[in-house]
């Protein structure tokens, strides 16, 4: 029931590093922000939409959204653009063919090395 809000409380001071990783993710997945991605909320509900932006708490803004099962979930029929609080997201399904996995791995190694030095 409770949102465990680790993100907002826990990372404020370290926001800088976080942004960079998210940026890497955005760069390398080429979410030129027109690709469809799927946000699975922690309630077994799927929303499909175009990823518009992500902030350091992983709050997400989606445009042109579609609910994958409107029969079961008519609750958002009139919503086309939405903001999702990062803390309620479990997964984001990404477009696999647009992910440069080599770039992701390199970026991760680089950041791991940077975090060591601090």
């Amino acid at each position, binding site marked *: 029931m409770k949102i*465990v809000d*680790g*993100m907002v409380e826990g*990372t404020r001071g*370290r926001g800088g*590093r*976080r942004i960079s*990783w998210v940026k*890497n*993710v955005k760069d390398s*997945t080429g979410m030129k922000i027109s690709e469809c991605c799927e946000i699975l909320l*922690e309630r077994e509900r799927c929303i499909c939409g175009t990823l518009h932006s992500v902030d350091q708490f*992983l709050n997400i803004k989606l445009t042109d959204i579609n609910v994958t099962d409107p029969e079961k979930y008519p609750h958002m029929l009139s919503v086309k653009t939405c903001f999702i609080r*990062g*803390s309620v*997201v*479990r*997964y*984001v*399904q*990404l*477009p*696999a063919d647009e*992910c440069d*996995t080599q770039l*992701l*791995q390199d*970026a*991760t*190694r680089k*950041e*791991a*090395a940077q*975090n*060591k*030095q601090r």
Partner: protein
Amino acid sequence: MADDQDQAIPVQTVEEPLDLVRLSLDERIYVKMRTDRELRGRLHAYDQHLNMILGDVEETVTTSEIDEETYEEIFKTTKRTIPMLFVRGDGVILVSPPMRTAT
């Protein structure tokens, strides 16, 4: 790559838990998640929160029901595959490096 020496040391050694995760990059790992979920997939990226990006993921969800007559717990597993998945770190319980025994 100005200081190759500095770079070389952390690559070889495991000093902290996340080093083990780093060594699992580009390998298939097992992730145990909260709410009875398990993931198997290739690790492409992670950060200090254990937010991760996994490729070719198989998700296993285990649900339990109580049989109305015998009151026995019945476990059901559902599987699905996802080509590329971002996983939020706060749901992660454990990350296990690749199983060397399997092929």
